[in-house]
């Protein structure tokens, strides 16, 4: 198959980017989308041109490195699929394919399709953990957890932190990402002790990082490659209200 690519090329966040056109011919539909980009990059290298920068690593859909917009959708057209798991058979011969980086103020462009998502790490740092030191843990089976809750916590914790939710949201909200971590920990007895403090701090950090507010359109879950559900946002809101009622709501440093 042949494809006509339009790819966003940008040197750094301060540069003004531009779209450039590339055509690839005789592409095997069974290769992955990133393998198609590999082919393009080898071609560019041989022409002594700067290859397209994009983040990727495990190519198994779990590390969360990859992700950019394909024809306006984070990770492209296939449901519940990261870019690295997307295959060319999802496209048609002679398709026009538009590639752009995730667009959000809190995700500055580093180069081409690669963006800086350190803001996500700062949200986690502000409270996305159980405060326990190595070696202090009690015997594992002394904590019994209903399977239902453990399974639900797992589903929240399956978030890969790729940022598709932010890119999908018209307000660039990080609510789905933040709520997945809040939910994961608030569903488990280990995480409940610090629950009120955690949600207050993480929400405050999310706001400080410049992410927009959530208006419950559901676009984030619809585009999430791991299908993290809207229920997480509901749980965060519940935790947040309960936190503010009990006077825990405070600024990150307060």
């Amino acid at each position, binding site marked *: 198959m042949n494809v006509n690519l339009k790819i966003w090329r940008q040197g*750094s966040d301060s540069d003004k980017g531009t779209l450039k056109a590339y055509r690839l011919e005789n592409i*095997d539909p*069974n*290769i*992955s989308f990133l*393998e198609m980009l*590999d*082919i393009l990059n080898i071609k*560019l*290298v041989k022409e*002594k041109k*700067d*290859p397209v*920068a994009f*983040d*990727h*690593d*495990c*190519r*198994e859909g*779990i*590390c*969360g*490195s990859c992700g950019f917009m394909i024809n306006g959708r984070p990770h492209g057209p296939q449901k*519940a*699929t990261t870019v690295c*798991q997307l*295959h060319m*058979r999802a496209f048609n011969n002679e398709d026009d394919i538009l590639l752009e980086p995730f667009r959000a103020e809190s995700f500055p462009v*580093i180069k081409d399709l690669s963006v800086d*998502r350190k803001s996500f*790490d700062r949200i*986690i*740092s*502000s409270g*996305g*953990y*159980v*405060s*326990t*030191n*190595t*070696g*202090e*843990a*009690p015997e*594992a*089976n002394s*904590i019994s*957890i209903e*399977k239902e809750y*453990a399974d639900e916590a*797992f589903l929240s*914790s*399956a978030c*890969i*932190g790729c940022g598709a939710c932010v890119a999908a949201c018209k307000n660039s909200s990080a609510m789905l990402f933040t709520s997945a971590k809040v939910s994961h*920990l608030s569903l*488990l007895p280990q*995480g409940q002790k610090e629950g009120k403090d955690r949600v207050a701090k993480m929400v405050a950090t999310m706001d400080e990082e410049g992410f927009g507010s959530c208006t419950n359109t559901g676009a984030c879950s619809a585009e999430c490659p791991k299908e993290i559900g809207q229920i997480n946002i509901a749980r965060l809101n519940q935790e947040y209200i309960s936190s503010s009622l009990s006077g825990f709501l405070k600024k990150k440093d307060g």
Partner: protein
Amino acid sequence: MTQSNLFSKAPEGELYTKWEEYKGSLNKLTPEEANKYKIIVIGTGLAGASASATLAERGFNVHAFSFHESPRRAHSIAAQGGINAAKNYKSDGDSVMRLFYDTIKGGDFRSREDNVYRLAEISKNIIDQCVAQGVPFAREYGGLLDNRSFGGVQVSRTFYARGQTGQQLLLGAYSALSRQMEKKKVVFYPRHDMLDVVLVEGKAKGIVTRNLVDGKVETHSADIVILATGGYSNVYYLSTNAMASNVTANWRAHRKGALFANPSFTQIHPTCIPVKNDFQSKLTLMSESLRNDGRVWVPKKKNDQRKPTEIPEEERDYYLERIYPAFGNLVPRDVASRRAKEVCDEGRGIGPTGFAVYLDFQKAIEEKGEDFIREKYGNLFDMYQNITDENPYKTPMKIYPAVHYTMGGLWVDYNLMTTIKGLFSIGESNFSDHGANRLGASALMQGLADGYFVVPHTAMDFLAKETPLMQDITDRPEFKEAAEKTKNEIAKLMSVDGKLAVDEVHRELGKIVWDKIGMARNEAGLKEALLEIPKIKEKFWNDISIPGSDKDINQELEKALRIKDFIELAELMAFDALDRKESCGAHFREEYQTEENEAERNDQDYKYVAAWDYSENEEPKLYKEELKYNNVKLKTRSYK
């Protein structure tokens, strides 16, 4: 008998109490004293993140480096199946002793008793630690933790979180690390490649890094350096490792004097999705846990072109169940891989290339139901379908062995210190506790054991005997010289200006390593490899092209710096495989096999760890650590 000239420094005494007693005897520092020291940790996967978090909790100032943008991207995240621990929750007779023995036997009697016993002991603490952090392990309806079985063992001791155990454990370690980042006890340097280790008066006191975003070559000093930089499977080009996994940090340490042990012990995992075409960039693992319910088979007839569902039961050869009635489909990885190669070499392989075998779930689906299978392996089945466009609930999976893990790595003593003082190596990056073959669900166990429970004690002991630097010493000549050398190397690579993309050279290298130092090796092939690899090296230095600038994100330059080291490593692997004139675990020398095609070990002459030094223009020199077995009897591994 071989001549030993390398010693583990494990203390004398009873195996069962050795670690506890030794730990008690080590020097301690209070958090106030620890605060005077700075520690550099390279890599933030399971081993690096757990070590960084724990050392910071103890009061040390940790500077953690990763080439990723976030610690959560490390390749530990992709581990699927599970983590072993001798909890004996299933009351099936498991114990620390049994996990110890299974691991020693699984490694074909080429690992250190003392280390492996310690690992088995610590395994229990790891589960406690992870549960306390909120890792959502699979549970039974009663609310207690669930377990499953893995290859090479007959008990159920593997803890898991669906097919995403590595992800959940890494997110646990990452959360502990994040907590210390918030407390300013850990400073994290994302998108930094370590390109050299700096020695001052014979001790590791710092590193040289390249900032991958702006290209700046920088130096950093510290009281000790810990490498947690993973394995080197990508020397084969195609492997299940992530694209950027590399040997560079370890290789640079090796060039500075750290011995490299058992480099040719590389694990070929039996259940991966087969190679489909020349553009393939990496291989995808299908977790070993699938062998709990999946049955491996090929047609009895050669070149059988029928669809698998059209081949009647009596015309199928469930060869693992046939050859190994006791362990069946759950034989260790090296055995399962070699047997798959054997049936394919006989012409009974399936699929378009003939290099694949079936992994069939039909019986399990009939007996236990599709929902049960979905609950257990759903994400793996989805991944398989996504990649291959085939539905494994309806037709058997096609699988073939692929490189997955490297048992070899930097040689470390009982304290996990390399032969360079003050340079530690943990997790997959060291030559590890797995001998010549690692059992499934043991890599996560080792990474976390080293990081949470071993190196925090041994590094503290080392530091307690060191005067803290208390200042930046990067203005010393050793640092300037190392930075200069790195800059020159980058300039040299940028100036090659040939016609090949570095990936093309890497692919060529990988083919040689796979063909000659892969699942089966022989003297002639290894000698050929030693003639062919230098040609690849020449091609690399004359023909590659790196467009763009080195003062910017340059992913071609990043790859070139890594491939340069892979080429040198490949040579060492060939020397190591040539030296070991026996078959053991994953190292299968065709000249040394029994009549039943099983590995033929030679304990008389090769019961040692082979640790190699580096020299620029001469053949590497071999140092031997004689392995002592006081608590287990050496015997021929049998899974029949």
